[in-house]
């Protein structure tokens, strides 16, 4: 069993993949707590897709694809915040419009490039085994920056999410904090691109956090549990992809979903199975 776990690590690409999985899994899961609590799942998915034109432009200009993705994600995050600030356009409508526009722009740009196939698959579905040492540094630094900000701004972010009225009476810059949260989300998505890809990053944001919500009753505990579940799922996905030759991002999301289902059914307090049994006994 131990050998089963350690054997793959003789390969340098697996070592880098393991580190990337751990970092991305935990980072996504912590940021995902706010995504779940603020009902931003749709936004997370939209942001991930909005990255596509940024990547295409970066490819055309010959600059680092991640930089292109980063610029596009931050731009779209701020635009959504700006559009939905006016009550003329509801937030989900604003997201729907920008999401579709950005995706269309991305597809249009990419359709003009003929030699794009390989890199595009990596952006869409991720390739954790192709992570370079440079990517690893970028992931680590960006992830650390995001987590540090979430830690430092724990109180204001908590108040803005839980009770916007109190936030306003305490004279917090509510709109700026909202935009900041969107930017942090955009950074997280870009960091996660290489591991799980555009198509699946929303799942790594939402599923571990939703699982942790069922197991905990306070935000710090929820974040810790979510980080654990996210990291475990990503690493389990990595091993599955090594041994069963499955796409690693997909494997990670499937593991996370399995964990969610188990917790949903068997969680000590909220588990559906126990609730059903209690109901039956109560009759």
């Amino acid at each position, binding site marked *: 069993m131990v050998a089963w776990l350690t054997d793959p690590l003789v390969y340098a690409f697996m070592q880098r993949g393991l580190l990337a999985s751990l970092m991305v899994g935990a980072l996504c899961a912590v940021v995902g707590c706010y995504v779940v*609590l603020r009902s931003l799942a749709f936004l997370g998915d939209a942001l991930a897709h909005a990255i596509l034109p940024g990547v295409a432009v970066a490819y055309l200009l010959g600059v680092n694809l991640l930089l292109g993705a980063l610029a596009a994600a931050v731009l779209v995050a701020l635009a959504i915040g700006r559009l939905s600030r006016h009550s003329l356009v509801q937030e989900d409508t604003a997201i729907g419009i920008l999401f579709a526009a950005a995706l269309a722009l991305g597809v249009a740009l990419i359709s003009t490039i003929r030699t794009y196939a390989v890199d595009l698959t990596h952006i869409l579905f991720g390739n954790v085994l192709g992570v370079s040492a440079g990517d690893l540094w970028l992931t680590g630094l960006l992830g650390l920056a995001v987590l540090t900000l979430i830690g*430092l*701004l724990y*109180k*204001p972010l*908590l*108040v803005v*999410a*839980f*009770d*916007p*009225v*109190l936030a*306003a*009476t*305490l*004279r917090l810059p509510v709109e700026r904090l909202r935009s900041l949260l969107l930017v942090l989300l955009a950074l997280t998505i870009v960091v996660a691109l290489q591991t799980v890809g555009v198509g699946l990053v929303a799942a790594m944001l939402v599923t571990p956090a939703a699982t942790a*919500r069922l197991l*905990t*009753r*306070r*935000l710090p*505990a*929820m974040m810790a549990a979510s980080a654990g579940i996210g990291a475990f799922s990503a690493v389990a996905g990595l091993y599955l992809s090594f041994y069963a030759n499955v796409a690693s991002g997909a494997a990670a999301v499937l593991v996370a979903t399995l964990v969610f289902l188990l917790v949903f059914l068997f969680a000590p307090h909220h588990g559906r199975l126990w609730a059903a049994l209690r109901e039956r006994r109560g009759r």
Partner: protein
Amino acid sequence: MKRRTSERHGEAGLLAEPARLELEAVTVAYNGQPVLVDVTFQVPHGAQVAVVGPNGAGKSTLFRALVGLLPLRSGRIFIHSRPLGHHRDCVAYVPQREEVDWRFPVTAADVVMMGRYGRIGWLRRPTRADRAAVARSMEQLGVADLADRPIGELSGGQQQRVFLARALAQEPHILLMDEPFTGVDVTTREATLALLDRLRDQGVTVMISTHDLNLAAERFDFVALLNRRLVAYGPPAQALTPQTIAEAFGGQALFLDGVAIVDRCCPPGEPQKRGG
């Protein structure tokens, strides 16, 4: 009670400045429609004011304007003779209960601690004094034993008492409560009334909105009778006359032998549904 009063005097000269609240020709619009028009009145330091009026009279709007949640279309609001927002505010606001996310993973004690955040500062950790203030506030409202329970699992009355405890933990000079007596259980009603007595001893200026004319007449120093504009303001005996009540409540007021009976049901076409 004495001990507590002296404690508050010790804290940064809490009562050194009179907590006067002044509204000068305040007009507030909501989605382009003026909801409050030309409201002018003054609340002296430590007074308790009941804001009374029919549904849609602009009571909540008044409170939201007072804490800076709604912009003024015209007019001015002064706290301690300084314009709203020009100093670290000392106003606590307990809104009607629909306004927070009840599924959020916070405990009752976490919620009360949020009342201290303005004092703690955004980057520092709560001190022992903050924890003590939280415990004391929860004790006073009878929710100390619920400290570790998730806020969403509490009953409506318990939740309201937790939010009152949070307002108390803020150690405000001015406390605004929107409909604290609407749709609550007896325990919460009693706890709220006891809180009003305690706040009176501490010299905290209080403003609440209510439908209950009797309560307003019996327990409050001043009554502000509101229906989009200020119909009457003054001590209950002066402010609440059959004429002013009829003027504020219109067809909803009925007089039997000089006693006003007010229909508390929502009139048809009421734009916002209210709790209770």
